[in-house]
């Protein structure tokens, strides 16, 4: 009955039909083809899934990959026991989920986490317990500015920057109005670098904040317009961004402004939802490779999903991100001394030592490093909503901001530049 999953699966299979390899065997872990039977290695994952949103795609995909690994020799013959918890957007449940996985179940690491809340609540616990979280669907600052969380996705800050940078360079934007949530670790945190970027490039910027539950997006839009902006950046989840677009359509503002958005608007349902009016007018930043790129990892992801995930599980960016986190994690475990994979401290050490995994799904290399901030993914693609789909208008490009200076320094020290 999950109506959306059916449509998503249909769209998903349609867009990958050209690959023509739908039945090729997926490649996972050691690729032995023999099921792992040894003592399980406990790994955890926390997602948020309750009204108003579902972030379970990343853990679903990670689970599919781990299942595939377990069917292909596991980690040196030992299966991964992947335990998933749901924080239901409730901070107490988030803390309880972490307590259960980290303290009670004794997980060696958490992989594929996707939530608005979990990282803010548990970042301290993770540090205290010396466990690494290879998250996949992060949206708040704690996720990127703490010692024991590293996320495969970008979150709003780089994605906003990427969108604004493209608009400034290619579309002639001079003044960007960033409409975001009035939540300190989300809206202001991710809008400010955009303003800084525009000012650094001789333009201007401003932020308009709205409360998550507020019914009225029109006043934020009007506020944005009254600042004299020429570009509107919708730093919001897809549902709200669409509401802003609807309000703008109501005012017939389409041709008076440049419309840009970070990754959340890269969702295959969006072009249909916003309708013909916006055709060709909206530019969206994508934090991972768009589906039509179809590199080896992208294809393997589809195969893993087809073979091991439920047809109901969404095939979206968060699923790609969960899959990527899981592959990096398995790769790390396989490279470790088999005697150490149960030792959380050693696993943490090994994850922190990751210095440059690459994938066609991600523009740059994936690395961790022993720092109080992690944002390996800060380059992306730019897409245009066109004819009911997304057209790639700029391939992998790096985002230019002072915010990334410490990250670039780490990359240089790891020899990635």
């Amino acid at each position, binding site marked *: *009955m999950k109506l959306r999953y059916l449509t998503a699966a249909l769209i998903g299979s349609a867009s990958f039909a050209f690959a023509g390899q739908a039945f090729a065997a997926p490649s996972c872990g050691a690729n032995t083809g023999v099921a792992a039977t040894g003592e399980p290695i406990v790994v955890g994952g926390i997602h948020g899934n309750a009204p*108003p949103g579902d972030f379970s795609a990343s853990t679903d995909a990670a689970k599919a990959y781990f299942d595939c690994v377990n069917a292909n020799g596991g980690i040196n013959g030992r299966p991964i026991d992947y335990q998933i918890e749901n924080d239901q957007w409730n901070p107490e449940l988030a803390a309880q989920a972490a307590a259960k996985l980290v303290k009670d179940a004794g997980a060696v690491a958490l992989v594929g986490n996707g939530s608005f809340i979990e990282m803010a609540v548990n970042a301290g616990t993770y540090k205290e317990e010396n466990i690494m979280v290879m998250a996949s669907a992060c949206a708040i600052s704690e996720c990127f500015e703490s010692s024991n969380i590293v996320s495969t996705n970008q979150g709003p800050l780089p994605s906003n920057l990427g969108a604004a940078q493209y608009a400034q360079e290619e579309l002639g934007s001079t003044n960007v109005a960033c409409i975001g949530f009035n939540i300190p670790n989300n809206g202001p945190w991710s809008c400010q670098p955009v303003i800084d970027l525009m000012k650094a490039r001789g333009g201007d910027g401003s932020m308009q904040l709205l409360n998550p539950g507020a019914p009225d997006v029109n*006043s934020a839009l009007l506020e944005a317009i009254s600042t004299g902006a020429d570009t509107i950046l919708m730093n919001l989840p897809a*549902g709200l961004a669409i509401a802003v677009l609807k309000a703008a359509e*109501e005012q017939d503002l389409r041709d008076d402004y440049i419309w840009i958005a970070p990754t959340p608007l890269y969702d295959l*349902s969006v072009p249909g*939802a916003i309708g013909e009016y916006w055709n060709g007018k909206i530019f969206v930043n994508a934090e991972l490779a768009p589906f039509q790129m179809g590199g080896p990892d992208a294809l393997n992801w589809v195969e893993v999903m087809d073979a091991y995930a439920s047809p109901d599980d969404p095939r979206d960016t968060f699923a790609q991100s969960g899959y990527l986190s899981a592959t990096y994690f398995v790769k790390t475990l396989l490279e470790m001394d088999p005697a150490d994979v149960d030792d959380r401290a050693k696993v943490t050490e090994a994850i922190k030592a990751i210095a440059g995994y690459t994938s066609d799904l991600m523009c740059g290399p994936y690395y961790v490093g022993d720092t109080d901030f992690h944002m390996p993914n800060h380059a992306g693609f730019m897409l245009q909503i066109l004819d009911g789909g997304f057209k790639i208008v700029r391939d992998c490009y790096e985002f230019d901001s002072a915010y990334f200076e410490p990250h670039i320094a780490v990359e240089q020290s790891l020899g990635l530049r």
Partner: protein
Amino acid sequence: MRNFKYLNWVIYLVVMVGIISFLGWGKPTKIIGLFFVSGLAVGSLYALGGIGMVVLYRATGVLNFANGAAGAAGVMLAWQLGQWGVWAPLTWLACILLALAISLTYGRLVAPRLAWREPVVKAVATLGFALIVLGIVSFLWIDDPRTFSLPTDKVGVYILGLRVTVTRLITFLASVSIVVGIYFYLSRTVVGLQMRALANDRDLSALIGIPILKVETIAWGISGVIAGFTGLMFGDLIRLEPTVITFMVIPSVAAAVCGRLDNLALVLIGGLSMGVIESLLTLSQTLKGVRPIAPFVIAAIVLIWYQRGTRLTFGTKD
């Protein structure tokens, strides 16, 4: 007494003009006009939600927090039917019918079992029902970006520099016509008269032979239809997210409170005023961050203002 009534209106106007000029001080008139009209648009949504609740409350004594959930279910169904290619007017009808069915289900099956409880408990029980409906709706239609549009979205007129779609005008006009329609219904029809009697004194009404079940069922029906219509409008004008539509009841209650859960015209005025003030708060640097607080503050002040002469809270049924 009559002078006193006018005094209230004068005070209301002075306060509104005061707030508008305070917030709009030094801003161009065009900007104030934009936010004013935008506020009216939001306000009419609050008012519409509030009116639906008050209509039911007057006749049955139940403040129905599940109104929003019923509307959300309705508009999600309408969207789904639209996706399947059903002719649009049929989908709107389906929305209203589903909300009607949900409302009647509660009104016939659950509400009578709580008839003897205090109004607060009755109200709180409807929240339980709202959770059931919201849970089912979110289970069937999982989180995904969707929009719901009406053909009237494409047509608009300019008011004080703001383009206002016909959908918004319909919302506003519907609020007014429901207020007027209910007024005439209550004063001109037998069932209306019975509803008023019921609102006045249930026990007495039962004694003098008013068919309570029938009258209440009609009231639940009317409120279900209004909830369905409200759901359509919310789905179109706010966003097509069941949770958001469901919890719109909380600011809607604020509008209902402005009419003391009784006077529909005051609900309308209260809702509109809240929308305008909330929207104009955008102009204040210090307050714009918390502007959705406006309905709650206004409702609390209004409620206390209504009671200013009372020294004691004499026991009444509520």
